[in-house]
């Protein structure tokens, strides 16, 4: 396993940890951006160029900004008055650890069955495009509908109430 992979993994994991641990909500969002970027770099490292760039475009360029806006709109940028973790944080942590234990043990125990190192496959954009417009055309259309619905839904959810002031 190359050094580069471990560095990138460290970036992603540390970013994620920071996103979940920092006190300031905005810092969390920024740390999340780092995590997203780390994941994108992992994608690139794994040879998925297109997915990597899409990851940056969508997550760093859109989702992170959206989060930041939501934080500012809900006064989340103000310093928290009391604890940032819920009263039952210990239970949550234990459960998450249990999940990790299950997942990790299953990965490690099935290592022998997993395929070994192979040459990096090429995923040219042309082929992805042809696949999207060919066998995956139905999912693509459904995603289009979903995105439209989400757009409208998000607007409606965020706009309702206080009709009197319109």
């Amino acid at each position, binding site marked *: 396993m190359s050094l580069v992979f471990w560095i990138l993994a460290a970036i992603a994991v540390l970013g994620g940890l920071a996103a979940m641990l920092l006190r300031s909500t905005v810092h969390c969002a920024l740390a999340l951006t780092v995590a997203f970027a780390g994941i994108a770099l992992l994608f690139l490292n794994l040879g998925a160029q297109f997915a990597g760039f899409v990851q940056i475009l969508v997550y760093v360029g859109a989702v992170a900004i959206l989060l930041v806006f939501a934080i500012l709109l*809900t006064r989340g940028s103000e310093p928290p008055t009391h604890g940032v973790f819920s009263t039952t*944080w210990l239970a949550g942590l234990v459960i998450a650890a249990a999940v990790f234990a299950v997942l990790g043990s299953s990965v490690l125990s099935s290592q022998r069955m997993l395929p070994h190192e192979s040459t990096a496959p090429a995923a040219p954009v042309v082929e992805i495009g042809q696949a999207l417009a060919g066998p995956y055309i139905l999912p693509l259309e459904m995603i289009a509908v979903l995105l439209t619905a989400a757009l409208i839904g998000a607007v409606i959810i965020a706009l309702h109430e206080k009709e009197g002031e319109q």
Partner: protein
Amino acid sequence: MTPLAASLLVAALMFSIGLAGALTRRNAILVLVGIELMLNAANLNLIAFWRYSPHPEALTGVMFAIFSIAVAAAEAAVGLGLVIAIYRHYKTTDLDQINRLKG
């Protein structure tokens, strides 16, 4: 450790971090952040399986990841819309204080 196992472990770690965050943070937005992390971990799995699968030319993993990214974007938009709506109603995003989600 095989590279695939390493990737899967990293993904599992990311997933657990996200889950832990979603379970422990009080701020609704950060719960969403945790969920985003979990989704990303799942995407990493998809890409890793594609990379080390016997038939990477099928592109299935990449396609799944791309669609999953698109769905996640929609999910984020709606989720944050919901958070804003909730904030408007309760004047807080603290999940400990929002407990009306019951019969």
